[in-house]
């Protein structure tokens, strides 16, 4: 470790670190412009100059590029430093009067009031964009042209770049926002949708799903990460103070030995873009309920301020449409998704809080509010005119001069209704999480035609499945709200505890037995067994001589499916409880 003094403060820093890094660690603020932790330092803008007052050649040096040296003494706010910084800012202001960051810095650190020739170029020529594209990303799309005062940043021959990835690193890192990759990228720029906010805002490849994520650790989305596509860019690896980034990680297989399994894989929302009449996916102001939830959420894309996606202004009229996909015989799901009526009422309340003078309408078939205090909740919404409930279905939604005309029926008054809405919220049906069928097959449990997992018995064994030891909880079993899900979860937990609280458990004795006399060790049965329960067994005489080898069924592994019995040519295997003689007797009894 290197010992040095910054602003008369004794500091210890790792060798190879820069003065800036050491100062920042010690909580001393040094302004920078052409510096970024992930990009090799250039020491170009000279905003970060500090004065060496001892232990080295006296003079002004850039903190971002000057290495720490044993016994060095530097001042970050000495009179010479301040004078130099003020002159640098004055010169930059002269070159780029329009750059906001320079104006702010000039305010904060003061700029020498020196009469100068004014330029109008926002680019302060710090070179960060060139360096990030060349040294970090590895594409070298933008470059310097010329030298001296006439130097400018461009692409070769000012032409559209052939190598630009469109990653936007240059615009992101530019301190004054003077560069826009759209000018030279061969393809249109497209941000990475943040799936947590339903794609309403963007995220970067390395991200945490949401601020309160547990575990609160990032991951890298290899589809969009530059390193995994071109092999370049290791910015995150460079910056990480804990050196935690490891690009070589691959799939890791872990085996868990468990006695019982609870499946709680939850649900997804049905994609309403199949119904052309609602225009979801075509009209930006037609959103799903989860998108609406994200919009009103404080941690959402608009930090809780509800705005119309098309105009960015709060919607004055919102129409909620229920049963989108649910309770439909054709072209949808026949079951009721149970939670939509309740969360739509909640949305009406939230909408009232957000837009006091807003007007909400709800097209419903029947308000399903069966839970505890559910009905009172909905009643309050209706009574306090938070929303006008219209019993009926919506036939069509179409845009007309900036609004969305919602044409539907109000069956109670028997009239045709048209509402000019500024936002339409669809309450899509609940469907099991994607991939549920594969998981069910892996766990060998049943599932219905919609993919909801099959309980052993709808009334008596709602949290168990036909496969012993596998239990169900939550929406993967059937649409349910949070209280029911939690209740079912605890039920499943108790079932699990019932099973694993014992050291042993009893199992049906209906397993295979080998008749060692007739078995001629052809081991056809071994191939038929899905559980690898069959293996060779040596029969020994008294003297320990091996007289024969026969098939042996491991009592613990055999599940009694009987495949081996049927395959056995010499009929030497019988499944207890389903022996051939029993079955033949039963078959015989089928005749009169």
């Amino acid at each position: 470790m290197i010992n040095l003094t910054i602003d008369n403060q004794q500091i210890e820093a790792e060798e190879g670190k820069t003065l800036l890094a050491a100062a920042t660690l010690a909580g001393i603020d040094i302004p920078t412009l052409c510096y970024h932790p992930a990009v090799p330092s250039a020491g170009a803008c000279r905003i970060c100059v500090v004065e060496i007052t001892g232990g080295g050649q006296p003079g002004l040096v850039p903190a971002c590029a000057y290495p720490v040296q044993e016994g060095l003494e530097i001042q970050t706010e000495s009179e010479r430093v301040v004078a130099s910084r003020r002159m640098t800012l004055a010169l930059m202001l002269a070159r780029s009067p329009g750059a906001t960051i320079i104006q702010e810095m000039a305010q904060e650190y003061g700029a020498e009031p020196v009469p100068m020739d004014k330029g109008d170029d926002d680019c302060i020529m710090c070179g960060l964009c060139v360096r990030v594209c060349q040294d970090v990303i590895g594409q070298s799309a933008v470059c310097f042209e010329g030298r001296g005062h006439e130097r400018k940043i461009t692409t070769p021959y000012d032409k559209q770049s052939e190598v630009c990835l469109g990653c936007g690193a240059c615009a992101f890192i530019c301190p004054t926002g003077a560069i826009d990759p759209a000018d030279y990228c061969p393809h249109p720029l497209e941000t990475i949708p943040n799936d947590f906010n339903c794609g309403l805002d963007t995220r970067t490849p390395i991200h945490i799903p949401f601020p309160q994520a547990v575990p609160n650790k990032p991951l890298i989305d290899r589809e969009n990460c530059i390193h995994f596509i071109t092999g370049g860019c290791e910015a995150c690896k460079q910056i990480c103070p804990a050196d935690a980034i490891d690009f070589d990680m691959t799939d890791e297989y872990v085996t868990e030995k468990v006695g019982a399994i609870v499946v709680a894989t939850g649900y997804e929302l049905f994609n309403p873009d199949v119904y052309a009449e609602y225009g979801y996916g075509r009209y930006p102001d037609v959103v799903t309920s989860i998108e609406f939830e994200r919009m009103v959420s404080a941690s959402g894309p608009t930090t809780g301020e509800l705005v119309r996606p098309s105009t960015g202004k709060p919607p004055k009229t919102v129409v909620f449409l229920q049963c989108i996909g649910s309770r439909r015989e054709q072209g949808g799901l026949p079951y009721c998704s149970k939670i939509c009526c309740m969360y739509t009422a909640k949305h009406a309340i939230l909408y009232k809080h957000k837009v006091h003078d807003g007007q909400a309408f709800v097209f419903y078939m029947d308000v399903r509010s069966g839970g505890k205090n559910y009905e009172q909740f909905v009643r309050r919404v209706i009574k306090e005119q938070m929303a006008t409930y219209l019993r009926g279905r919506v036939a069509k939604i179409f845009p007309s001069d900036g609004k969305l005309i919602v044409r539907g029926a109000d069956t109670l008054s028997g009239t045709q209704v048209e509402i000019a809405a500024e936002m339409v919220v669809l309450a899509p049906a609940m469907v099991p999480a994607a991939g549920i069928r594969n998981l069910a097959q892996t766990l060998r449990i049943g599932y219905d035609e919609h993919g909801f997992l099959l309980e052993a018995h709808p009334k008596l064994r709602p949290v168990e499945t036909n496969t012993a030891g596998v239990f169900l909880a939550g929406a993967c079993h059937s649409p349910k709200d949070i209280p029911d899900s939690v209740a079912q979860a605890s039920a499943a937990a108790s079932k699990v505890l019932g099973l694993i609280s014992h050291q042993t458990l009893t199992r049906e004795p209906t397993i295979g037995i080998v008749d060692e006399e007739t078995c001629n060790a052809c081991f056809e049965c071994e191939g038929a067994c899905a559980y690898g329960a069959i293996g060779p067994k040596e029969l020994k005489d008294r003297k320990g001589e091996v007289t024969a080898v026969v098939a042996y069924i491991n009592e613990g592994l055999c599940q009694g499916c009987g495949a081996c019995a049927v395959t056995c040519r010499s009929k030497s295997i019988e499944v207890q409880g389903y022996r051939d003689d029993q079955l033949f007797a039963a078959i015989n009894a089928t005749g009169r």
Partner: protein
Amino acid sequence: MAVATQLRTPEDLANLREQAATRRESKRMAIAICCGTGCRAQGSMDLVEEFRSRLEAEGLSDVEVRATGCHGFCERGPLVVIYPKEIFYCGVQDTDVADIVDKSIKGDELVESLLFRDPVSKNRFHLEHEVPFYAKQQRIVFRNNGKIDPVVISDYIAVDGYVALAKALTQMTPEAVIDEVEKSGLRGRGGGGFPTGRKWRICHGQPGDQKYIICNGDEGDPGAFMDRSIMEGDPHSVLEGMTIGAYAIGASRAYMYVRAEYPLAVANLEIALEQSRALGLLGEDIFGSGFSFDVEIVRGAGAFVCGEETGLISSIQGDIGSPRQRPPYPAESGLWDKPTNINNVETWANIPVIIDRGADWFASVGTEKSKGTKVFSLVGKVQNTGLVEVPMGTTLREIVYDIGGGILKKRKFKAVQTGGPSGGCIPEAMLDLPVDFEKLRDVGAMMGSGGLIVMDERTCMVDVAKYFLAFLVDESCGKCTPCREGLFQMHAILSRITEGRGREGDIELLQRLAAYVGESSLCQLGGTAPNPVLSTIRYFRDEYEAHIDHKRCPAGVCTSLVNFGIDSEACKGCGLCLKDCPTEAISGEKKAPHRIDETVCVQCGVCYEACPFDAITVE
């Protein structure tokens, strides 16, 4: 005549030297014709042909015609020196060849018209060393220029070439070589004056097996061309110096960075490399010492900033010549991040002499802290322009007047500028200043590469400052704010002043900007850029005030502040000015006083220069 046998041992070298020397002496006479760029531009190559064909025609086979490198006295080119007597003819045209052959070669007379006539004392000199231009010079670096043919290695060997290398490789350890160089007190001739011995010791001490040597032949300073003449005229002295240096430091490869504008230097160096490789003086196991070394030539491409060490390194590495922040210094991590030692051409050329004749001999030349000699390129408004090699400590007056022959057209001396764009100007009051690293720095100037630009009363110091800033604004790499923006603003201010739009406080503003640029710039280009402005303000503040307050340019240079007229009495109507005027603003009959038409005149000042009778008036 190239000798193909490999010199495996110092003895082989000694035998070759014997052979070469005897062959040179066998010739009764040798006609040395300067074929440096300067004289070549004045037709010296035709002279060589003319002499050869003449001698052949006359059957004089015992006379050798030798095309040598630059003799230094470019003003009087093309130069011919006849050995052994050292008869010095200048301004020789091919028509004079017949005369010279008849009188000086066959006979023993002199061709009076070609002898050098001193403009001041009007008397003639016929021996080279007597000519005032050469009399006061002490030629160590230029010891062979003018005496050997640069493209014939045996010439160089004949004059004790590579003796130092053999001595170093076979009798001295690398540390001993470094001690010798340190003892000699040699300091960098590139401009900084950093002690060469210490620089080598640092690089030698660095870990790592791969080290590099670089010869900085960028010579970006305008007005300096001594490196050129050395590389063209005596390439082997540089190569030998580099090989000794590489041996001392432990480097196996070297790069010679030569300016794009020196094609002849590149050509001569390439030939020298081929020839020394052929003799085994470069390549594997030189002189059987186990030391292997080779040199590669890298052509520069026209960037003054590549004279700065890290700028040069990134240029060799194939990138733009932008300097980088130091430390790490090139000695620790330079070319491709390996320890690299960079020295100027002139510094390398001194090494063989130091090793050959010993550090004490070298230390006996020069002043207490600045040892040895320095080659200056004496140019500008001086009679005898050319390359002058004088021991450190010689006074400016001696250089400008004794050697330089005083001011052109007997105008009044005003100042001399040293160190090019990084240097400063020295007024008349300080003409007796002895030339020394410290002394020059104390007065605000700088040794620099050695450009000595003489200025007379007709030179406007503000214009000079503006010129240097214009140069630096164009040559700045543009990386760091102080240099890119600071110099641009300073140049803008100076332009305003020279166009008569100077304002109160401009001088103080220039000084503040200058201090800032000098202090905050990333590299030494920016660091020293303000010197010309600061020194012109320091010594010629009155001129600045004249421009700003009275909107007048005393020297009559700044066109927008000046208009020219003709004094009818003085004007003899010779018509010289009329002929030269680019815009035909002058009219008048032969022998009758001429007139200048104000509206057409662009104040270019050509008439003022051309008029022999000082009839042009300037207000």
